């Protein structure tokens, strides 16, 4: 009885996942291993070797962005969890507020702000300083990633910090821990599930982004996302685009697998994605 109800309840999701996840993945796989005429071929896979530097660049940028995000988010989330409950909600809303706007609009806004004739350079000029070129630099791209994905890091870390029982902190102090040891021996290990969720949620969209690098990188920085987009949109080479996507997927799966191993070893599995 119970089992049949479960199957019945699951059915819509199974159908949904089949049509919108499994079938597209299969199509990607088919494209990756065929040529433009639809014949089985390793051409696209072989061609991948020309793009390994794009992969490395993507990995490097997303790693730097993830580390910077973590460095900003961790102390922020900790401080936030220590403020009075009433102001916590408002502050959390302020963190989430930019996410109510579309990613494209936010990135476009930064393009305008960082532009050669943008607000920042206008201010610099009015202060008789030399204008700075932001767009097209690695710094601008990483800044864009950090800005866009910061809430995804703050939220899971804040959640684990907020639900941490204060009597645990008192117990640690009672057993001889100074402030640093309380953090190292208690707060850090207990916040790891949140950190791992945060890393995953920032790393995955960063490594596959094309929009941020395109707009803030001024087209000069070709990440793997940009390469895929170019193959698909400009060059109509769906086969190579699919092969690149496949590698990116494997890359993400491997990194998530590694992160999940960390999550398991800390007890609570906290990976959200």
């Amino acid at each position, binding site marked *: 009885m119970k089992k049949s109800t479960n199957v019945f309840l699951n059915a819509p999701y199974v159908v949904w996942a089949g049509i919108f996840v499994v079938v597209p993945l299969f199509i990607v796989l088919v494209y990756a291993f065929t040529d433009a005429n639809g014949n089985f071929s390793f051409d696209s896979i072989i061609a991948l070797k020309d793009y390994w530097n794009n992969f490395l660049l993507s990995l490097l940028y997303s790693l730097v962005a993830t580390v910077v995000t973590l460095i900003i988010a961790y102390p922020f989330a900790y401080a936030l969890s220590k403020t009075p409950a009433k102001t916590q909600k408002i502050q959390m809303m302020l963190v989430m507020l930019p996410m109510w706007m579309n990613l494209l609009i936010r990135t476009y806004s930064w393009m305008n702000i960082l532009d050669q004739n943008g607000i920042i350079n206008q201010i610099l000029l009015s202060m008789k300083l030399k204008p700075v070129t932001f767009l097209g630099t690695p710094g601008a791209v990483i800044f864009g990633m950090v800005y866009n994905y910061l809430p995804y890091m703050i939220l899971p870390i804040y959640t684990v910090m907020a639900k941490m*029982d*204060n*009597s*645990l902190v*008192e*117990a*640690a*102090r*009672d*057993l*001889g*821990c*100074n402030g640093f*040891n309380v953090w190292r*021996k*208690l707060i850090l*290990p*207990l916040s790891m599930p949140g950190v791992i969720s945060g890393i995953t949620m920032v790393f995955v969209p960063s490594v596959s982004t094309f929009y941020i690098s395109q707009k803030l990188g001024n087209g000069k920085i070709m990440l793997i996302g940009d390469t895929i987009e170019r193959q698909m949109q400009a060059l109509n080479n769906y086969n190579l685009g699919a092969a690149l996507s496949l590698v990116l997927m494997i890359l993400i799966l491997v990194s998530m697998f590694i992160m999940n191993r960390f999550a398991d070893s*800390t*007890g609570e599995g906290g990976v959200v994605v």
Partner: protein
Amino acid sequence: MDGINSSNVVELRNVTVKFENDVILDNLSLAIRDKEFVTLLGPSGCGKTTTLRLIAGFLEPNEGEILFDGVDVNGVPAHKRPVNTIFQRYALFPHLNVYDNIAFGLKVAKVPKSVIAQRVSEMLELVNLKGFEKRAVNTLSGGQQQRVAIARAAINNPKVLLLDEPLAALDAKLRKDMQNELKSMQRRLGITFVFVTHDQEEALSMSDTIVVMDNGKIQQIGSPTDIYNEPQNAFVADFIGESNIIDGVMLKDRLVRFHNRTLECVDFGFEPNEPVDVVIRPEDVDIVHPEKGLICGTVTSVTFKGVHYEIIIDVDGFKWMVQTTDESKVDDFVGLSIDPDAIHIMKKSEYSGTMGDYSYFSDEMEEISNPDYGNEETEDEEVD
């Protein structure tokens, strides 16, 4: 308890704690002797947990001093105080197993690994948890977690072990066993225990000294028998055990008048005709034939309690509680017989007339019917 000297392991002098405008502790002074089992007893919000947190160092007093072995420790943080705490809900570290929880304090103190291993196994033996080293703490029962918490605190050889209602979360049978175990553990360890509870029975059966608290003030300090037999005011008499507290007048030494009868008693030292509170324990009253009774009344309720009957008797509108093994029936007209040494006379206090009559539900009953009940306690904990 008056002796303020250096054999007091912990001493509080004129300590006041305020939380915003609420006075949590009001000019409280308390001396705790070495190797003593002291219980802080009182209703929720009386300041007992705050007192414990002051000693632990989680809280600094607004006024007054706290001394350890005669040395002022105001401003000394919790991790530098030679005391350890057993928390109400144990506060075991969820990311560590039983061994690492117990070893926590010694690891922080950078004690050599071999010494830690030996001490942990001693502690596991002390709390009867041998073989549990590798278990995750969230797989343990409440009683087992309790023991881990005790071992985790005791392994650091504290001078004073602070216990914040440690038995509150256990069921009745286990609580009784743990009372005995804690008491014997205290003797074996040979250290001071400061135990916080709202359970008077727990306090009476475990303590060397009981500190009865209410409204941020100490109401009475004494041994369990002193507290029970010689309560100093109506609050103590009512809170510790059951009491009939009657308005009376001390005519002269050893002669008291209440319920319009004059009775002999054994107390003296009051002014002639001084108004007093008269305390008579329910188990000290005998039900006799109305002709033989000093005081007569009508039975209004009879409850069978196993060991005895609990009988409520209306005497001129005042409801007495009597505990006796003889059964009576509702509406019986009976006499009450009281020995002179069962009558205890107390000076009038702010609590006079507010308790000790069994016409109403108890305070606790009223408290749990009140939606705000328990809020005081959380405020108490938030002080930090």
